[in-house]
């Protein structure tokens, strides 16, 4: 049984998050970068790592592990950023995803891709397009557009906003000029 959304032979880029192998459609990948200096943006949720300078453009970087509900990644020499194009509200948005290591690009037939099992994934299954099989290993094919849909990004941001940061003792001063 194959996944209805996938009907063509497509090349996929595989990368590792922890010990697991994930894949995404190469069509949406712009380039793969070494991790440059990341500038944190205040008040943004944890999975939004910050912004980088990509040849003069300011591009946000997202920790894919945190987005998928895994633990935070520890930077290693293999850590890199996959620069991805996402369709959001009718416009292309460029963003980088932090992954533990990039592996290879190969083609998968639609028959090689199976739907996601409802149970036992321990991941947010709505982000997964299907399960691919390559060299007797399973790989998880991600639905990038869904992961970075405005709903997801905004939903996360709202929950992260407004945790009181001023101690009550200090708060007794009114900021009034």
């Amino acid at each position, binding site marked *: 049984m194959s996944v209805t959304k996938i009907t063509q032979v497509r090349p996929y880029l595989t990368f590792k998050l922890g010990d697991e192998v994930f894949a995404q459609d190469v069509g949406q990948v712009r380039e793969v970068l070494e991790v440059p200096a990341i*500038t944190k943006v205040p*008040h943004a949720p944890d999975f939004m790592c910050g*912004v980088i300078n990509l040849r*003069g453009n300011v591009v946000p970087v997202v920790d894919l592990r945190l987005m998928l509900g895994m633990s935070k990644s520890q930077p290693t020499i293999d850590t890199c950023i996959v620069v991805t194009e996402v369709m959001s509200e009718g416009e292309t948005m460029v963003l980088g995803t932090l992954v533990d290591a990039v592996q290879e690009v190969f083609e998968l037939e639609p028959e090689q891709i199976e739907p996601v099992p409802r149970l036992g994934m321990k991941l947010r299954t709505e982000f997964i397009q299907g399960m691919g099989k390559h060299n007797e290993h399973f790989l998880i094919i991600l639905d990038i557009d869904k992961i970075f849909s405005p709903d997801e990004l905004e939903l996360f941001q709202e929950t992260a*906003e407004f945790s009181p940061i001023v101690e009550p003792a200090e708060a*007794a001063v*009114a*900021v009034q000029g």
Partner: protein
Amino acid sequence: MMDEHLDLFREEAYELLAELETSLLELEETPDDAAIIGRVFRALHTIKGSGSMVGFDEIATFTHQVETAFDLVRDGKLTVTKELVGVTLLAKDWIRATLDTSVGGGPGDTQKEQAILTSLSELVLAATPVRQPAGAPPDQPSDPLTYSIYFRPASNIFINGTNPLCLLDELAQLGDCQVAAHSEAIPPLAEIDPEACYTYWDITLTTRQGLDAIKDVFIFVEDDCELTIEVTDTAPYTGGKIDQPHIEEKRKAAPSLNRDGAAQPKQQAAPSASSIRVPAEKLDWLVNLVGELVTVQASLSQTVASQNITGLTSIVEEIERLSGELRDVTLNIRMIPIGTTFSQFKRLVHDLSHKLGKEVKMITEGAETGLDKTVIERLNDPLVHLIRNSIDHGIESPEVRQAAGKPRQGTIHLSAVHAGANVLIQVKDDGAGLDVDAIRARAVEKGLVEAEAELSEAELFALIFAPGFSTAGQVTDVSGRGVGLDVVRGAITAMQGSIDIASQPGWGTTITLKLPLTLAIIDGLLVNVGQENFVLPLLAVEECVELTSEDVAQAHGRHLADVRGEVVPYIRLRDQFKINGQPPAIEQIVITQVENRRIGLVVDQVIGEHQTVIKTLSRAYRKVEEIAGATILGNGTVALILDISKLVQAADSVERAALEKALCRSEQF
């Protein structure tokens, strides 16, 4: 190809309509000015002409009717009245609306169209007692004349979208018309260029319309063709075959006249070649590239300075100078005069004062002041609000004004002037001025201030920009809902600008907007907190002072600093942005001016001034309001640009929430 022409026509028509409006409003003040009447007529005529050329037939016919009325005006047969100007303004709106909605000749709002045309023809009929239909041109020669016309378009005539056959059709409408086409010049099929016009025509036209009417047909092509028009016979042309050799002879006799005729319009056309039309996106692209160049140049300078390579330093300095100049020139290209916006406001004043039964005139000054086009675009709405507000609340009714010993007609003075890297835009009225007591009462009623709060005049004035504030007793559809002015403040601060209000009871109010010339590059102050760099807009920065740990101890933990005797509250960016790490023993407070309040921002270090090329932060971060954008530093890392007023608002609300929480807790115990 055709789409291009449509767009071009639209663009041209919008400009012409804007010019038409300005001229009409001027005409209302000086109804006899022949020069202005001429301008109105020309604008209408050109819209009609190019409209029919690209297929906006509806606009062309409509405009023709309006043009006819102004033809009468030009001949002194119809006098300019307020009504005529009013109807023509409506007609202008109709044309504009039709242009907006129709893709080319599609139906416009026919009901409105009819209404406008009816009132127009009523005006025309009332003024011309001679029985003459509104649509007919005025000075018809009583006897028909026969003209012989030789029309040979330039071979590249198709390139600018002209269809010679349309012109011939137009001629045929003028009267009895015989057309003979000459096909001798058409080359053999193998050599033919399908985009070139080889055919030329001899036309014999018998018409009652004057020579001008015929010339008008060719008005758009006269530079691109050989054209001779001459009267052959005063007797009506009786038809029949055209005698070929006869025409040929005529043409041979004509060339000297033809050349003279062609020379003049060419000269007129010459000045327009000195400016070119460039799509705005191309300019935006250029500005972006220059922005990147400036960034790379900064990092080059930094690298060279740190390595001290002889010979390279002078080259880098040269590049620095050149890229600086390039930046200035590029930004300058995007500067457009604010005058185009000003002329729209004349219309607003005209319509609004009529509606409210007030007499208001608007004087503008500094229309040539150049501003970045993005600033001008974003300035439009705030200015509309301010002018509406001045007319509605500021300027009194004529009776009240007379009783107060002021001229019946109120004046709104709109001016723009450059001041360094900023521009000052002033909206000044000679109305009643702000009522300080009413503002206070209203603010207390709305819960914006405490009843016994002591506020300076400037602070009270600033209240009119608070959300939900309106002192107007009744809500009109013009203003009084209290939505306008806080929107103004929001828009101005979003552009890193500031608002200043001055008012004198009985003499009027002056609102001054201070804005940066451009939004693409700003002067910033680079600071750092821990590992993070931030840029503050230099426009808002007043001074920097030190904050030692003793100062903090003396203030008993309150976030207040003593700046030469004045108490200034401050925000610790480290706390606000949850940046980890230990602050240095001596921190810096950057004192900023936000909405008439002085607020300090505590940072670890002030690095210095920074030419900041503004990059938008990705949409993924649009919920983070305290950050206005990002910029790329010389070392290639990204620094965030702070929106100080949003930052203060956020700190305010966090503090208020914490205070309420603390109060709840103390009540429990």
